[in-house]
């Protein structure tokens, strides 16, 4: 056991810190074009696509260095890169399963955010049970005709391309009849309707596909291999931003402490109230434990070990923690915590999503993590069955299959 950073990693961190301090934008980025420009700058400096192989335009660096970049960005509250779904897992999926043509056509533009990507998986009747999806793709020779509806599509309104799961064999068992495509979002058969989230912003959407075209050359892997491919996609998605996430929590914590020093109750600052102190101590202990656990996962990733189903423990741990964290923060702040425009004395905080806002936004946003990318209940099923080896539950769809 040795938790010191290697000299190379320390030098890498030093360099990233200096670059970010010199280059981080001083004004809020308001438009998509401004965010794309910042993204490109980050990319050119070597801080986007850190993990991607060099042959596809990435930097071929280690998971540790990837985590260091995220951490340093959080430290200076840098606006995040965009196209996270693309770079975090759609691109890696193409790298693993895609053809040379697909790699040449899509990867570089994804990295530079010239083209924005979204994930077209969930449907109104296929959420946790993704394999029951109904969107159809009919084989028309050089292309497939796509009909159906997707929902909760993040970045849908700004996306140029999507990774799509659609049914290509309705007679096969449900996991065996699904294929994976890259779908052009900028075509007449694709209609995107923004959906407003509980935070008030519209980051996700519904996507309606009516005789939309997916080219045959945009089929990923072989026909009906989609479920298998989707499993790798989810695997990449559960990778690591462990350090950066915890640093963001820690920055929010110091803002919380500052607020607890300024706010008074019963004639004394909140920070002197033993009940408030106990709450602060409890959430800070949990926050640190998330950091230690993150380092443990990261050190394994960095040695090339794949966490497999154990990554469900990480996801469950930090998403459930995040809810408790902001619940405690709002308990401490009282009605102050519920303001949707922050009073000047409490700076705006950037939530772990990168969505700018107030404590209230962060509190609301913390409800999302235990739903997307496999809800907490699904993670617990995976942990129970695949990590602990507990017997599978009796399920109606398994009885049929």
């Amino acid at each position, binding site marked *: *056991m*040795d*938790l*010191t*950073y*290697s000299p190379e*990693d320390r030098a890498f961190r030093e360099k990233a810190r200096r670059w970010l301090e010199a280059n981080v934008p001083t004004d809020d980025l308001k438009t998509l074009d401004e965010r794309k420009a910042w993204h490109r700058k980050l990319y050119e400096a070597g801080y986007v696509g850190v993990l991607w192989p060099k042959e596809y335009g990435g930097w071929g660096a280690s998971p*540790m260095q990837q985590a260091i970049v995220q951490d340093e960005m959080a430290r200076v509250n840098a606006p995040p890169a965009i196209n996270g779904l693309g770079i975090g897992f759609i691109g890696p999926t193409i790298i693993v399963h895609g053809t040379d043509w697909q790699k040449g056509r899509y990867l570089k533009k994804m990295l530079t955010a010239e083209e924005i990507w979204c994930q077209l998986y969930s449907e109104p009747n296929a959420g946790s049970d993704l394999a029951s999806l109904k969107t159809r793709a009919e084989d028309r020779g050089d292309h497939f005709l796509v009909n159906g509806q997707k929902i909760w599509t993040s970045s849908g309104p700004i996306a140029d391309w999507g990774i799509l799961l659609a049914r290509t064999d309705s007679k096969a068992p449900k996991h065996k009849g699904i294929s994976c495509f890259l779908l052009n979002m900028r075509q007449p058969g694709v209609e995107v309707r923004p959906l407003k989230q509980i935070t008030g912003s519209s980051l996700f959407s519904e996507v309606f596909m009516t005789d939309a075209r997916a080219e045959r050359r945009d089929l990923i892997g072989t026909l009906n291999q989609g479920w298998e491919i989707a499993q790798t996609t989810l695997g990449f998605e559960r990778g690591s931003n462990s350090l950066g996430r915890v640093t963001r929590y820690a920055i929010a*914590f*110091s803002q919380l*402490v500052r607020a*607890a*020093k300024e706010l008074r109750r019963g004639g004394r600052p909140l*920070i002197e109230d033993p009940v408030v*102190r*106990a709450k*602060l*101590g*409890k959430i*800070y*202990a*949990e926050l*640190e*434990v*998330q950091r*230690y*656990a993150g*380092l*443990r996962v*990261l*050190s*394994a990733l*960095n*040695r090339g070990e794949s966490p497999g189903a154990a990554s469900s*423990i990480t996801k*469950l*741990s930090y998403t459930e923690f995040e809810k408790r964290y902001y619940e405690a923060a709002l308990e401490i702040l009282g009605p102050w915590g519920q303001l949707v425009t922050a009073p000047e004395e409490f700076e705006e905080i950037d939530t772990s999503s990168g969505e700018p806002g107030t404590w209230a936004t962060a509190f609301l946003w913390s409800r999302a993590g235990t739903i997307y990318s496999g809800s907490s*209940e699904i*993670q*617990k*099923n995976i*942990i*129970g*069955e695949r*990590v*602990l*080896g*507990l*017997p*599978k*539950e*009796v399920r109606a769809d398994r009885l049929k299959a």
Partner: protein
Amino acid sequence: MNFSFSSDQQLLKNSARAFLDEHMKPATVRLLWDDPRGESEALWKEMGELGWLGLSLPEAHGGSGLGMVETAILLEEMGHAALPGPYLPTVLAARAIEEAGTNAQRMRWLSAIATGEARATLALLDADLDWRPEGTRTRAEKSATGWTLSGTKRFVPWAHVADVLLVPARTPDGLTLFLVDPAAAGLTLEPAQVMDGATRLVTVTLDATPVGGDGVLGAAGQAGPLLASLLRRGAVGAAAEMLGAARRCLDMAVGYAKVREQFGQPIGSFQAIRHKCAEMLLEVENSHAAVYYSAWALDARAEDAELAASVAKAYVGDAARRVCGEAIQVHGGIGFTWEYDLHLYFKRAKALEAMYGDADHHRELIVRRVAA
């Protein structure tokens, strides 16, 4: 950066598991629960031969010169076995003697501890149960031959088998740590019975108890930092032991959930049970990260070592209680019986939760550190 054990550390863990599986079966633990002394003298000797007692002592004193990570590895296995005995207080005391002792004190105690001839303990709590060293009430006054100590120390672990007690007391110079002979005049020991039979706690009353001039450990009046550092090591050590107990309970719960059938299927196939087991695993794995991070931080003198010790104690104390308790729940009625072994580990974890600063104490230390 490597969070996994080295091959030597893994070897230590495996051999400790094998040794305790063989020599500290639940039936043996139960015998010791009923034993007035409460620990096995033969086993203690063997632990000395295995190098466990001198694990973190310098080689010059018969030790192996290893660190807190290795100590935590052993303590986790001891918690996993619910091993009764004064291991943690003895190695903590040895550490303090090694760190602050005079040559004579080190010669007197360290190799005796490493070989298993001597046991030691810490009398950290006064009657008002304040874990802060500055809360110490026991007093020491200068005498012709040295000092006399008066006061009451509560919940002193294993004082009835100890050959030396480390006793903090107030002097006109400030807080001072004394090496006290348990047979000294005016000192009485009154064992208390607690729900964990593997925990022995003793009330130590000092009534003008004489201590020689050579019985001061470290500089007179300067014991505060040494005591704080002992408490930190104690906190990490106790967290490691609680982790072991929690891991044992988790394993027992999962094993039982696979074989116990109700409603025509194993209870582990019910989500109510499976999800509970998943949550227990989550807390055990997080506890593992907390224990070994904090142990490493002490060894590496990392700048957050003090914070990490409090984090580990506060987090693991809560987690181990929940995990061991939920294991009883998973077992249903059988888990509530004396004959079934679960309660050995449940009680072991619960007993350690209150020692070396409870979670409230450590949460306050955390807030002082991060909200200053």
